[in-house]
């Protein structure tokens, strides 16, 4: 017996990509407008949670598999460290901004900040999704 009505389902399915788009906007414009890696990542996570609530866990599990999510967290952290070390290899200090700064005001204008924002966005998004999966699955017994 599926309690969520048809309207809610189709609406969220249509809305889902736009929420992701908004999350990407927040991350990519993190250094120009208020926003940044964490806020965009939280919006990614909430998009996955919304899908999970409406479609049910087994459906979303097919699209966003849990071990892939925790793998992305690991790789995200390694990429973050990699950015730090490339700074060192190029002779600057750890985690320093080695990319050229474009003219201010455009998206690629802050060098490393954009890439760091992206990695953090992914990690926070997948982290929240994993926490959501775990607490929901733990409650319902249908493993």
């Amino acid at each position, binding site marked *: 017996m599926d309690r969520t009505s048809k309207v809610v389902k189709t609406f969220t399915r249509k809305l889902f990509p736009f929420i992701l788009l908004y999350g990407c906007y927040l991350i990519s414009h993190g250094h*120009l*407008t*208020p926003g940044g890696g*964490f806020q965009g990542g939280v919006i990614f996570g909430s998009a996955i949670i919304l899908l999970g609530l409406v479609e049910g866990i087994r459906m979303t599990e097919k699209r966003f598999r849990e071990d892939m999510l925790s793998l992305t967290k690991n790789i995200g952290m390694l990429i973050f460290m990699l950015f730090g070390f490339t700074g060192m290899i190029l002779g600057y200090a750890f985690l320093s901004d080695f990319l050229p700064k474009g003219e201010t005001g455009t998206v690629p204008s802050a060098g490393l900040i954009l890439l760091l924002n992206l990695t953090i966005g992914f990690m926070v998004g997948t982290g929240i999704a994993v*926490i959501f999966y*775990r*607490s929901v699955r733990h409650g319902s017994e249908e493993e």
Partner: protein
Amino acid sequence: MTWLNGLNIGIIVILIGLYGMLTKTNLIKMIMCLYVMSSGVILFFISLGYVSGGEAAIFENGVKAMVDPLPQAVMLTTLVIGLGITALGLALAIKTYEDNRTLDTRKLKEKEE
């Protein structure tokens, strides 16, 4: 009423959280009080950086005075740490409820003896 500014209210919110922490016995309520306390600290720290008449710390044309951006950047980190701690606390509370079927610290203490 110049006394009611962010600094003093922040301290009051921390103390309210501390009061809740000392008196509540339900596990979930303790985590809520914990988060109230950390919001109080965040309010205190950010209102330290307030510059009267300052705008948000983003460069747009026509921005005269700017608010101090450092507390905001530092408190962003504290927020995410608070989120992590609350998520972990709630997971622990779920696990204790599953094992002992109670969230009341007094009953948990009796169960331990």
